[in-house]
């Protein structure tokens, strides 16, 4: 008992004597928000990303390593709209860190800056894994990234006012480069407009919305529900009658059903990075969209 108290006391003193004024500690739930925070915060932020592009963000565990990062975070950058509902509440609860609780300046939700698509008018879990507040997979529309960047710049300045000018300058710089980049991607992706595509999960909706791709079918019969053989059979019939140009897959998806369908209906399937780190080309946010547009165009040929 005495040793235990001594150990606790020693660690407590250690905590109190940590250097002040170090870089802002940020815990980002996805690689995309991690990359964006790095773009905006430069060397004034120290970003830890909770997941990789090869994980399904719906199903992540509240791992001890993440609880430890949440405890020390000055800012948590999450998607929101209940995307992380299965694990982030536990992280925040276990963190013993009042600064990053929901409602505090240290808790930022990307969707707070956005208007979500597919807000359901009816809620029933018989409809599958639906998100009551709207589709939270917002990162594949670069205009969303831009809106979140504005809000995140403001938030960084709010919690680290000493560096406000630095964040404002970086935010402005990013905004200009991103504007240019969007113009480039949109010009390049013009041939994709109106092309019929098959999607895997509702997490490709924002990409389709941005590029004007027409979603004609979904490999998941309902969100989060894997396809049955009978359902895939009906898709073959449907896609033979009204062919699609592409079948879209994400890096983290199980490719089996899409590969099978691709072979049956002679439509190419294309694996998109989905998040920063999801492909060799998607090293940062610019790379994510470069690679996504390039892969789509290459598959269309």
């Amino acid at each position, binding site marked *: 008992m005495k040793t235990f108290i001594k150990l606790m006391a020693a660690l407590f003193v250690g905590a109190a004597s940590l250097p002040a004024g170090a870089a802002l500690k940020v815990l980002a739930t996805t690689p995309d928000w991690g990359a964006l925070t790095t773009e905006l915060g430069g060397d004034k932020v120290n970003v830890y990303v909770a997941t990789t592009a090869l994980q399904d963000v719906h199903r992540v*565990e509240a791992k001890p*390593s993440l609880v*430890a990062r949440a405890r020390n975070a000055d800012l948590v950058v999450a998607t929101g709209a209940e995307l992380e509902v299965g694990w982030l509440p536990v992280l925040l609860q276990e963190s013993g860190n009042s600064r990053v609780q929901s409602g505090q300046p240290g808790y930022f939700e990307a969707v707070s800056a956005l208007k979500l698509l597919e807000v359901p008018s009816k809620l029933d879990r018989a409809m599958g894994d639906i998100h009551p507040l709207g589709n939270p997979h917002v990162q594949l529309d670069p205009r969303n990234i831009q809106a979140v960047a504005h809000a995140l710049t403001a938030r960084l300045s709010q919690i680290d006012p000493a560096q406000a000018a630095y964040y404002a300058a970086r935010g402005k710089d990013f905004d200009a480069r991103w504007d240019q980049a969007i113009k480039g991607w949109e010009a390049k992706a013009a041939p994709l407009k109106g092309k019929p595509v098959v999607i895997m999960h509702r997490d490709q909706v924002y990409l389709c919305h941005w590029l004007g791709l027409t979603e004609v079918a979904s490999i998941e019969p309902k969100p989060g529900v894997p396809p049955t053989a009978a359902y895939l059979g009906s898709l073959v019939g449907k896609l033979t009658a009204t062919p699609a140009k592409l079948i879209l897959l994400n890096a983290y998806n199980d490719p089996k059903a899409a590969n099978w369908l691709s072979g049956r209906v002679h439509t190419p399937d294309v694996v998109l990075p989905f998040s920063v780190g999801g492909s060799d080309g998607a090293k940062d946010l610019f790379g994510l969209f470069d690679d996504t547009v390039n892969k789509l165009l290459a598959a269309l040929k």
Partner: protein
Amino acid sequence: MRNLRFVVASMTLVTLPALAPAADDVAALRAEMQALKSDYNARVQALEARIQQLESANAAPADAATAVAATRPEPPPPAAAATSSASAFNPAISLILGGSYTTTSRDPADWRIAGFVPAGEEIGPGERSFNLGESELTFSASIDPYFSGTLTAAITADNEIEVEEAFFRTTALRDGLSVKGGRFLSGFGYLNEVHAHAWDFVDQPLVYQAMFGGQYRQNGVQVKWLAPTDLFLEFGAETGNGDNFPGTRLEDNGFNGATLFAHVGGDIGDYTSWRAGASWLTSRAEERPGGIPGADGASAFDSFTGDSDTWVVDGVLKWEPSPRRQLKLQGEYMHRKEDGTFVFDPAGLAALANYGNTQSGWYLQGVYQFAARWRVGARYDSLDSGSPLYSPAASDPPIEFAPPGAAPSPDRLSLMFDWNPSEFSRLRAQFDWDDARDDGHSLTDGDHVLRLQYLYGIGAHGAHKY
């Protein structure tokens, strides 16, 4: 389209009585009906709101109806504004439904863990045939900017309501500190804090059943502190009234017992995470009922008064190479030492004797998710009931209380297979080779237990601990 027709029809009906004062409005509405084709959904909502306005206007005096009609061009108020705020702060509610079908090769009524004092009634494989499990109802919400609260009630098959957990927790403390108070699952060990619906097997390992009757609940307070390191390092201390096996509630003021625990955890590479821990629990029992079956099968004592110290080391490792595959290995070793006196009352003659024993047990389990919705698992349980020592008087040297023949060696092997159609449903089959009754001489035949279980969750999306 059927929906639209219904709206138009009901609107016409509703507006009829108000036709005289609102004739112009009806004409305007008719014109708008044409426009509906272009913007179907939004318009239907707007019209529904307007119908509500007209309905309330009809109930009111005629001039009031005209007044409402006159304000018609204004957009209808958003739906959110119309709902009462009384329900807006309702807590998150979730309900777990569970049940099982059980077959056993031996009579479940004589199930016991050889060499161990029964630690409660909720142990063992349960009854044969269909069994309704506990329906678990959880309410939770932030209380204010400083606290959050949670209640988990279990509605049992016997139509009783049990408070599983009811606690507050701080949310405004910083530097890794948090405080919890009320009744809660103790931070002792790894599996102790896991709710029944999140277990990987139908029941708790034998060691938890023998040492705690399932799970150790604290009626008291807990303080936890998380170290400011990137390595997960957590320390906790609890105290309470001790009113949970192996302790009993004391008549004194103050606390009974304490729990201390420490957990450490982290990642190995991108796919592997782990947590390990050690915990210690001390508590005092006063006239705790119980009885070890002695050599002749009769109870060796009736009640125990004394100190009980338990410690555990636990570890869990998860390897997740893809979003659809996971291997989870976990194990715990528990050790308990009890010292005190027991009352032995064979024929109304309350004899007192000194008593001491050291018991231990462990389990090791592995669960492998081999496809998105399928898992298999295996678990092995083993217990050591120790060698009870007693002496008729404090001055006498202790005597080993050993029944003839071999010592009890309760153990069990379980295999599990489950299918998880979604995050909210689970169907499971579990088969046990259950030798918990094995006392080494008279009850050595094992039991074969098959259980088919369902677990469904409705309501708020729960978030599970690691």
